[in-house]
């Protein structure tokens, strides 16, 4: 079973994402911010990260840059999932190593399509 780390400071979003991804046969772990997500990745790298941008302590962008510099940190597929929907922000995320990008609000079909696009399903 593939693993996905859901990183979002909203417990509601984490719950919605968990339900969608469990329906796609992913085992889910959760983190409330970028720092907690990094700690989780240092313990064990997931196959995928669904990542919010704006979070306290460490935001999604900083998390991604740090993850990609970690040993093996290029392996997880990172899909941003954020209300940041300006072209410049999207381009910045891709430049930092994001594989895909979801603009909130999202639904099951969008998550499934994006995960399929990066070869996770």
């Amino acid at each position, binding site marked *: 079973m593939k693993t996905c780390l859901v990183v979002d400071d909203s417990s509601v979003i984490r719950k919605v994402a968990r339900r969608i991804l469990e329906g796609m046969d992913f085992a889910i772990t959760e983190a409330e911010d970028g720092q907690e997500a990094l700690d989780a990745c240092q313990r064990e790298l997931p196959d995928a990260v669904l990542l919010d941008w704006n979070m306290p302590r460490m935001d999604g962008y900083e998390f991604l840059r740090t993850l990609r510099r970690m040993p093996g940190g290029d392996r997880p597929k990172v899909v941003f999932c954020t209300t940041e929907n300006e072209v410049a922000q*999207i381009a910045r995320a891709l430049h930092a190593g994001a594989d895909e990008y979801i603009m909130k609000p999202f639904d099951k079909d969008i998550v499934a399509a994006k995960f399929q696009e990066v070869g996770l399903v």
Partner: protein
Amino acid sequence: MTPFDYDYLRKLLKDRSGLVLSADKEYLVESRLLPIARKNSLGSLSELVQKLKGPGSETLLVAVVEAMTTNETFFLRDKVPFDHFRNSIVPALLKAREAKRKLRIWCAAASTGQEPYSLAMCLKDMGPRLDGWRVEIVATDLSMDVLDKAKAGVYSQFEVQRGLPIQMLLKYFTQTGETWQISSEIRSMVQYRTLNLLGDFTSLGPFDLVFCRNVLIYFDQPTKIDVLERIRRITEPDGFLVLGAAETVVGLTDAFKPVQDQRGVYAPNGAVPAKGAGGFAMPATQRLAANFGAPR
């Protein structure tokens, strides 16, 4: 809505669009047609049916047919057919048409444009391989409303995320507030026309490739056979047909045969089937008889 009203609508939709509604689809009819009844100041679906039966109801009839034909669509829907398009179909056609350097593609149920634009973007991504080629994508649909939306090429944030990789979004779309518009370069690659698949479409052809996905599932068996055989008549002998994941030619007609290892892709099989009445007018038994007698 009385059972008589429902039967009337079922027959009307079958005759006008080929849409087959089973007896348990009343909820679907109600959910889609009640807004039309309200818009026309009619108090119920029974009143809507009465109005449809009366004189001068053509505009209302078009609205009813358009509301009932399914328009759900995604960019690069199902992904696999577009992988076949990029990796097998187009390379085969580029080789076969090297002398003419011309390709004609038909999207037979284009809806709001996601499918023809997906094909256009895939072709554009092939870069210099298509330099000097003339590529025509003809996109048709029964509904004028959806084609107007397709021509504008403007999609909500929700719509552009359905199947479209983020790199393609950035490459081919311009963001305007909450909406995204596909580039004029991609839009100019597609010609739109209103077309009912039950009518004669001979003059559209011939085509090197026909995408006819997720529309045959709404037709009954004789209609599926009729449409497939008429598509065959306007498909080049070395061309291709792509059907939806839940559709097949197997058990319906031998006008096409499945292409090995490419799910959903079909190739013309032998000679063109004998020409029937050029539409849906010929009864299924006669059409079948005519085709059994055709040289193959």
